[in-house]
C-alpha cells in the first residue's frame, strides 16, 4: 500500500476511535454510586454530538471526561458545558479550558456537599464555586437540606451573589429560609425580589433582602446591617 493511503487510513481510524470514546463515558455509568444516583435522578437529555467539535477538541474532551468518570464525578454537566461552548461557536481551547475548570469545581463541590449529593446538586454547587462562593458556604447550605434537596438554595445563593449581595449575607438569608418546611417557593421569591431591586443598585438589593427575610422568617434578625444611604443609580450587570 502506498504511504499516503496508509496515513489517511490511520488518521480516519483514529478519528473514529476518538469519537466513539468521547461518547462512551456518557453511555455507561462510571461507578456504582453514580449508577445508583442516575437511577434515582430524572434523566437529563444530554446527547453528546462529537461532530460539533473538531477532532483534537473531541480527543481532549474524552480525556477530561474519562478522568472525571474515574473520580466518580458526573459527566453530564461537563458535556453540557462543552455543547454550550460549541453552540456559542467558542474555540476548541476555550471549550477545553471551561470544561476543565468546571470539572475541578465539581470535585470541590462534592467535597463541600458530600458524597451522597446528586449530580444536579454538584453542578449547582460547582456553578456557585465558579461564581466565587466559598465551599464553606456550600457546606452550610448542605446542613439545612438533605441529599437531593439543596438545588434551589444553591441556585438562589449563586444568583444573589451575582447580583451584588455579599456572600455571607446571602448565606445567612438563604439558610434562614431554607430550614423552613417547603421553602423553595420562598427562596425563589427572595431571588425575584432581589433581582428586581438590584437594578437600582446594590444598596437597594440589600434593603430588599432584609425586608424579605424579616417578613418571611418569623422572628428573624435581618441578615445584614441596613444598606448605605448611597442611592446613586448603577447600571445593571451586563447580561
Amino acid at each position, binding site marked *: 500500500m502506498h504511504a499516503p493511503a496508509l496515513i489517511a487510513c490511520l488518521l480516519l481510524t483514529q478519528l473514529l476511535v476518538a469519537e466513539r470514546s468521547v461518547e462512551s463515558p456518557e453511555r455507561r455509568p462510571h461507578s456504582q454510586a453514580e449508577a445508583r444516583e442516575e437511577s434515582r435522578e430524572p434523566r437529563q437529555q444530554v446527547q453528546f454530538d462529537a461532530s460539533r467539535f473538531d477532532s483534537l477538541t473531541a480527543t481532549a474532551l474524552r480525556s477530561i471526561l474519562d478522568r472525571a468518570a474515574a473520580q466518580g464525578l458526573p459527566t453530564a454537566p461537563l458535556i453540557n*458545558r462543552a455543547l*454550550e461552548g460549541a453552540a456559542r461557536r467558542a474555540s476548541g481551547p476555550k471549550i477545553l479550558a471551561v470544561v476543565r475548570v468546571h470539572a475541578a469545581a465539581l470535585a470541590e463541590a462534592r467535597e463541600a456537599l458530600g458524597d451522597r449529593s446528586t449530580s444536579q446538586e454538584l453542578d449547582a454547587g460547582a456553578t456557585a464555586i465558579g461564581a466565587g462562593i466559598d465551599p464553606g458556604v456550600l457546606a452550610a447550605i448542605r446542613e439545612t437540606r438533605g441529599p437531593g434537596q439543596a438545588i434551589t438554595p444553591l441556585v438562589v445563593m449563586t444568583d444573589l451573589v451575582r447580583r451584588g449581595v455579599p456572600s455571607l449575607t446571602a448565606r445567612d438569608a438563604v439558610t434562614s429560609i431554607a430550614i423552613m418546611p417547603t421553602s423553595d417557593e420562598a427562596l*425563589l421569591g427572595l431571588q425575584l425580589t432581589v433581582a428586581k431591586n438590584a*437594578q437600582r443598585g446594590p444598596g437597594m438589593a440589600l434593603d430588599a433582602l432584609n425586608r424579605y427575610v424579616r417578613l418571611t422568617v418569623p422572628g428573624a434578625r435581618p441578615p445584614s446591617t441596613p444598606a448605605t444611604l448611597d442611592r446613586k443609580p448603577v447600571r*445593571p450587570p451586563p447580561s
Partner: protein
Amino acid sequence: MTDRESSLPSATSNDDPALAAELAALYARTPAAEPAQIARCTSAVLSAALPAPGAARTIGGLRFRWWWGAAAAALLIAVVTRPWRPDQAQQEADSAFVAAAAALEPRGLTVEERNGSVTRFDLTLPASTKAVSLVGDFNGWDEAATPMVRRASDGAWSTRVPLPPGRHVYAFVVDGQRWLVDPLAPQVPDAGFGPTNALIVGGTP
C-alpha cells in the same frame, strides 16, 4: 450696451433676439429705486411683522414681564429637585432611571404549567426582532431544536417545552446571533462563554 443691459439675467443665446432686445431696452428705461422709496418699503414690511412700539403683549390683562419666566423656571427646578428632601428626590430619579432602562431591556417569564409538566417560556423583545429560539441543556444547545413563536395578543415570543423535574440551564438566541438571558430569572454566572439562566422545575421540596 450699458451695464444694466449686460446684466439682464434671462438673456441667453437661445432666446428670441427681438424679444430679448425689447426686454433689455425696457429694463434699461426703468429708473433705479430712490433711497427714500426703499426706506418706505422697509418700514412697511417691518411694521406689518412686528408689534407697534408701546403696544406690549398682555396675558389676561396683565403685561408680560421677563421675570415671570425666571420665576416659573425656579419653581419647576425646586419642585423637581426638592433640595429640602434630597434622598426622596434621588429615589425618584432612580425610579425614573430604572423605568427607562427597563423599557429597553428584554422581559422574560417562565411559567410551569401544572398539567402535563410542561414549562412555558416567554420573552418580550423589541418589534424589530425577526426570530428567537430557546437553547439549553434539555435540547443539546441546538438553536434549531426549539424555535419560539411570536404571540399575536401581546407580541411576546413564547414556546412550551416538556421538562423533567430538576435544574435546567437555558438561554435565548435572538436572530441567530445574539444570546440573551432573562434579566429577572435566576442567572448562572459567566464561566467563559457568557451568562445563562437557571430554572428549577418542581419536584424538589
